[in-house]
Every structure is written in structure tokens, then in C-alpha cells.
């Protein structure tokens, strides 16, 4: 028997289970419309193996199975062995119940969405424990467990190992609240860093821990060797889980230095993962590959890193971001090479393009549109990739130009450091035209220097300064403009959304008013009919009276 709210006056004779209020339509002895719509296959009579009765059996079994132990998260594999039927269909029912909170509502939640997260009970259990020790933000009362109202008092070090034990102890005193979803969002990251705490000796298990396979108990290697398994546990029940650099979960902790190393080694060795893994000392081959895939530009590297031969390493090595997207470099370098007789045109277009606001960001047009100019194509490409890629592309383009004449190279070489500083600050914002502006400005400078004089050495000191100033201001302006545009877009969307809501509510109001008036009309009509009937009755009575009067021969009878 379940009740969505807790009534403090009744003695808890029945077990109380919490389900979310949006599932309050659920009844044991009936099948609701929601279920019929969501799981049509059972209700359309298409097969003898899919009937409402069968659905009800599946559903009841799953819910009862979950409620045998509400704090434990029921997995699909546990139920499917007990039910006859297509496993995909069973899985659908299971997911339906899970989404509506009819099962697993009070259970510890699995790790968030990443499939790589270690989903062992030890992790989540410790997450709950660590929550206790962290303390709550102001104004939020955190319950010690999902199942009691008692605020946190004593942080148990988990000596008895299981939150299950605590559930029995805490007593069913009140409404069982699920763990606050936002809590794990806020404190989830802290938990990740904490690592595992040994259940028996209380120390951190850094290198490896042994998990108790039947429960939620973790002990460190030392204790395992010494035989301190904790009460009632034997050696065979423990499973080794390596927290060292080999497990998938710890492949996730990449520092920036390691990422830089990884990118460099991939640049140099391309697809040769053995060498790459050697260069990145703390990560295994598998980790390197998966990390590279995760990086937004990682796939570009793997494709063409080994094709690239003469990327101007001098200019790129100074930029951390510059090491990415070598294929982008290739494309841009090729494009620039092919068309450097169109330099003047592109310069002019460059100015026009950079004046366009970041509306380019929204375009999803095909990559190579033959109709548009070169600079627009570059703009398209740069909107689709991140800022560091665009920066790298700009650098490579400049370098390609430099290859033709050596004197501007000196100018740009001196400028790089400043460029790195300028570019690394607004890394979170993608502002395509910034790079273009930089590009355009550099091209302009390039042109003017080339045409003016060959003894750039005397002006070398001044020109870099100008360039620096220009690049810095361009960067700042671009970043600000992009930010503002983003905010404005967001505001627009919000406004639209709110207006839509308002309109809807007004419509609903009107509808209900109309309905009300319709009802009134009906009532009035009925009353009118009744009145008419009454009138007729009256008329009949009068006629009767008149008849009788005439029959009895009343002489002077007046109506």
C-alpha cells in the first residue's frame, strides 16, 4: 500500500513507499490511460503475448520486486530473469516504471550520465557518506539518508559498511525524501576528487581498493592483505577495483599539462599509440585514445596528423591551442595558397566580413559553398570550430604567407607571445570574427610592409607595437561583442517563451469561461422548458374548472 503523502496521525501499519506526485494516478488494480498510451503494444490486441493481463503481471512483479528493498536500486537484469517475454519489451516496461518513479524512486542513484562512471555501489554509497561530511548549503536541510527526516548528526565512517543498515536503524519516522538532485550537481565534483575511503581502517585508498561484491563496502589493499575484511565477510566476496591510472574512471582526470603533452605527441607520432602513450607518462594507451576522441578537435588530429609534414612548428609550439586541428591548417593553407592573387579582393572582403556581427555563428550552411567568396568560406569554417582552432588556422595562414617573403616573418615572430596572451584569455567565448580580424589586420600590415619598403628592420620596433595594440583591441572588442550577442539571444528566447505562456493561459481562461456560460445556458433552457410545462398544466386545470362549471350550469359564471 502506498501513499504519496505521509499522514502523521496514523500509525504506520503498512509499509510506506514514496512515489512522485506526478505518478499519483497509479493504482494496483487498474491500468491507467498513461500506461495504455505509453505501452501501446500491450493494448492493441496485436498478439497473444501482449495483453493487458500480462502487462499488469510484469508491472506488479517489477514494483513488488523493487519494494522488497526500496533503498536498493533495482536493475533490469534482476527482473528479466524472472519474467517470460521479449527482453526488449520488458526493458521498455522497466524504463517506463523507472521514469515515472514507480520503481527506484528512493534508491541511491547511479552515477550521472556518463557510462564510464564506476557504477559500483561503493562509489555511490560513499557519495552519500561524503555528502554528509561536506555539510549543506544554507537554507537547505539535508537528510542523512533518503529515508529519514533526521538531519545529519554523526558522520558514520561506514564501519558497518552499508547504507542499508542505516535504513533499518533510522526508523520510518517520516516522509522519505529522495536525495536532492541539485546536491549531487553541486557537490558531485568534490566527491570525485575525494576517492575511496577504506571501510575498516578509515584511510584513503589511493592505489586500489577491494569492493565487497554483495554490498557496499570498500577496503583498501592493506586491509585486504591483513585480513581485516570487516564482519561477516570473507575473502572471496571482494573484488579488486584498481584506482590506479588504468581504470577508465581515472582516465577522466586529465590535467592541462597532460593534455598538452598528449596533443604534442599525437602531432609528432600520429597514429602510433605506443609512442604517444610513452610520451604521456601517466596515462595508458586506452586513456589517450579516449581522451583524444573526447576533445572537440581530436578526430581531426588522428586523421591527418601523420600526413602533415611541414607545419611551421616554430609558430605553433608557442600556442597550446595551436597544436590542434592540423587538418584545418591544411585546408586553410591550401586555400590561401591557391588564391594569393586574390589577396586584394580578400582584404577588402575581410573588412566587410569582420564588420558583420556574430550572426555567422548560427549558420549551418554546407561547408564549401562555391558561390561565396573565399573569406566567407573561411568564416563558415571558423564558426564551426572552437576559437583556438581558428587562432591556429590564422597562424598557419600567416605563416604560409610568410613563406613567400622572409621579412614579415620576423615581424610576426615577435608578435606571437602577445598573441598567445591575447587569445588565451577569452577562451570560453567563440568569436569567429576575432580571428578574422586579426587575420585581416595582419594581411593588411603584410601588404603595406611589402609595398612600402624592404628595410623593415628599422621599423621593426615600431611595427610590432602597432600590431600588438591592434590585436589586443581587436581581441577585446570581439570578445565583448560576441558575449553581448549571446546574452541578447538568450533574452529574446526567454521573452518569446514567456509570452507564449501568457497567451496560453489567457486562452485557457477564456475557454473555461465559455464552458461556464454554456453550462448556464443549458440550465436556463431547462428551466424555461419546465416553466412552459407548468404553464400548460395550469391552462389544463383552468379548462377543467370551466368544464365543470358549465356542466353544473352555473348561470352567471364569470371567468
Amino acid at each position, binding site marked *: 500500500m502506498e501513499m504519496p503523502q505521509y499522514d502523521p496521525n496514523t500509525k504506520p501499519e503498512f509499509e510506506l513507499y514514496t512515489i512522485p506526485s506526478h505518478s499519483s494516478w497509479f493504482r494496483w488494480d487498474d491500468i491507467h490511460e498513461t500506461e495504455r498510451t505509453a505501452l501501446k503494444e500491450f493494448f492493441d490486441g496485436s498478439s*497473444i503475448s501482449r495483453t493487458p493481463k500480462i502487462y499488469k503481471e510484469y508491472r506488479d512483479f517489477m514494483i513488488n520486486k523493487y519494494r522488497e528493498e526500496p533503498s536498493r536500486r533495482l*536493475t533490469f537484469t534482476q527482473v528479466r*530473469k524472472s519474467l*517470460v517475454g*521479449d*527482453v526488449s519489451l520488458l526493458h521498455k516496461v522497466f524504463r517506463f516504471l523507472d521514469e515515472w518513479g514507480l520503481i527506484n524512486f528512493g534508491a541511491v542513484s547511479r552515477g550521472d550520465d556518463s557510462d564510464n562512471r564506476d557504477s559500483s555501489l561503493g562509489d555511490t554509497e560513499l557519495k552519500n557518506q561524503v555528502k554528509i561530511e561536506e555539510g549543506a548549503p544554507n537554507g537547505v536541510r539535508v537528510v542523512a539518508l533518503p529515508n529519514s527526516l533526521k538531519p545529519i548528526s554523526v558522520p558514520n565512517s561506514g564501519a558497518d559498511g552499508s547504507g542499508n543498515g542505516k535504513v533499518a536503524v533510522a526508523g520510518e519516522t517520516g516522509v522519505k525524501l529522495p536525495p536532492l538532485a541539485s546536491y549531487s550537481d553541486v557537490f558531485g565534483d568534490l566527491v570525485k576528487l575525494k576517492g575511496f575511503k577504506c571501510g575498516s581502517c578509515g584511510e584513503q585508498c589511493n592505489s586500489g581498493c577491494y569492493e565487497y561484491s554483495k554490498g557496499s563496502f570498500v577496503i583498501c589493499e592493506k586491509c585486504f592483505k591483513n585480513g581485516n575484511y570487516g564482519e561477516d565477510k570473507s575473502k572471496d566476496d571482494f573484488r579488486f577495483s584498481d584506482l590506479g591510472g588504468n*581504470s577508465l574512471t581515472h582516465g577522466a582526470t586529465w590535467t592541462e599539462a597532460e593534455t598538452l603533452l598528449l596533443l604534442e605527441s599525437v602531432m609528432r607520432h600520429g597514429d602510433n599509440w605506443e609512442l604517444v602513450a610513452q610520451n604521456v607518462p601517466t596515462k595508458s594507451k586506452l586513456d589517450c585514445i579516449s581522451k583524444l576522441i573526447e576533445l572537440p578537435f581530436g578526430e581531426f588530429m588522428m586523421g591527418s596528423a601523420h600526413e602533415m609534414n611541414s607545419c611551421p612548428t616554430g609558430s605553433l609550439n608557442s600556442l597550446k591551442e595551436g597544436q590542434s586541428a592540423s587538418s584545418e591548417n591544411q585546408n586553410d593553407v591550401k586555400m590561401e595558397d591557391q588564391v594569393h592573387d586574390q589577396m586584394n579582393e580578400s582584404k577588402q572582403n575581410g573588412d566587410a566580413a569582420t564588420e558583420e556581427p556574430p550572426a555567422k555563428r548560427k549558420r549551418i550552411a554546407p561547408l564549401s559553398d562555391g558561390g561565396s567568396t573565399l573569406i566567407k568560406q573561411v568564416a563558415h569554417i571558423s564558426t564551426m570550430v572552437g576559437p583556438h582552432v581558428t587562432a591556429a588556422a590564422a597562424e598557419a595562414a600567416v605563416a604560409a604567407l610568410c613563406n613567400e617573403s622572409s621579412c614579415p616573418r620576423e615581424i610576426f615572430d615577435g608578435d606571437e607571445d602577445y598573441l598567445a596572451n591575447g587569445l588565451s584569455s577569452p577562451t570560453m567565448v567563440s568569436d569567429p570574427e576575432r580571428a578574422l580580424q586579426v587575420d585581416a589586420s595582419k594581411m593588411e600590415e603584410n601588404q603595406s610592409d611589402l609595398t612600402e619598403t624592404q628595410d623593415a628592420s628599422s621599423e621593426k620596433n615600431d611595427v610590432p607595437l602597432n600590431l600588438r595594440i591592434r590585436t589586443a583591441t581587436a581581441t577585446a572588442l570581439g570578445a565583448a561583442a560576441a558575449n553581448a550577442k549571446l546574452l541578447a539571444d538568450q533574452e529574446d528566447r526567454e521573452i518569446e517563451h514567456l509570452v507564449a505562456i501568457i497567451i496560453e493561459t489567457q486562452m485557457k481562461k477564456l475557454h473555461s469561461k465559455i464552458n461556464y456560460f454554456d453550462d448556464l445556458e443549458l440550465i436556463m433552457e431547462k428551466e424555461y422548458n419546465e416553466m412552459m410545462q407548468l404553464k400548460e398544466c395550469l391552462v389544463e386545470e383552468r379548462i377543467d374548472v370551466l368544464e365543470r362549471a358549465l356542466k353544473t350550469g352555473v348561470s352567471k359564471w364569470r371567468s
Partner: protein
Amino acid sequence: MKLPATSSSKAPVKPTADNLVPIRLDIETEGQRYKDAFTWNPSDPDSEVVVFAKRTVRDLKLPPQFITQIAQSIQTQLTEFRSYEGQDMYTAEKIVPIKLDLRVNHTLIKDHFLWDLNNYESDPEEFARTFCNDMGIEDPEVGPAVAFAIREQLYEIAIQSVASAREIKISKKGRRGAEHAISSKGGGNALDLMKLFRYNSSVVRKRKEWYVYEPIVDILSNEEVDALEAREDRNTR
């Protein structure tokens, strides 16, 4: 693989959520043996086969003779798959038992469950994912292997039913072969739906039968893995 009830003009209906072909490779050249099993998307252009073969050879550092052999093998299996596509398959429901018995690196899996051949929303990959999550398997190669095993078995069953349907058609030509085929399809792999889903029987299994359908996942030690591999090699030679 089946004629669709509703379909767009482009894609044929898929027996599962994605139309993937299970491909198994077992090539031996110059003393080196390459065994692999994966799923392939038949709507990929055939040029991809050669590209894939080249990349595999490079990644695994195999001698280059493997490239042509791998590509050929994949192509043959693909063509065979395509020859079954569009066959007239009866859309009667068919629940078949699937048994898993595979070893992936250090993980040994034994499992037994039911699968509906006709459920177009069924997804072996999703099943494999749920399986790995629920059983806490961390080895990323297990999921695809499980999905592959399921697909392979489904594929074989489908082929069998196509072949048997053809035979029935030939043998009973002119005589409403279709209806007969449906009724006789109860034999073979498909479970008798009438018996299982009778009105007065329950779909919840008896407790003592639970262990039959329960998955068993074992993590083997290195020695056990070596022993098993040696035995497998002996068996296949």
C-alpha cells in the same frame, strides 16, 4: 530484411532498431591468425570496406596481405546479407531463445533470454549497454561483443526461417502455402506462444527456474584465460 508494414521509400524496415550486419573474420596467413567479430552498417558505401581493412591492418600492425583478405571476407558476408534483404518474411511474432556464451578478454558471460524477432524497436546494443551497466562490467569491449553475439544469432535464425519458408513454398505450391507456413513455424526455434501466454498461466517464472535465465559473469585470471584460449585453438584446428 523484412517487408515493412510502414516504411519510407528509402530504407527497408529493420529487424532491429538499427540494421547492422554481424561480420565475423577468421583469417590465417603466414602463421598469423586474425580473429574478429563486429557489426557493419550495410548502407555504408562499399568503398569503406577497403578503408576499414587498411586501417585495421595498420592499427594491429599486421602484414599487408591481410588487407585484401579482410576486405574480401567482409564483402562476401555483406553480399550474402543483402541477398536476404527484401525477402518476404512473415510478420508473425516470433519469440526465440537467445543464449550467450562468450569470452571477451577476461570476462566470461553466460546468459539465456528471450527475444522477439519481430519487434522492430529491439536494440541489441541497448541491451548490451544495460547489461554491462547492471553487471558492473568495466571492460569496454564486452558490450559490443554481447551485441554482436545477439545479432549473429538473430541473423542465423532469420536465415533459417527464410530458407524453410522457401522450402515450404516450393513444396506446397498452389496450396495457400503462407498460412501453412505460419502454423508450422511454431516448431524449430520459436517458442510456442500459445503455450507460454495462455490465459490462465502466469508470465512470472517459478523461482526455481530463475537461475536458468540469470546471467553469469565471471572474471577470469590470466592463467584461466590462457588455458581457455589454448583449448579453443585446439578445437578449431
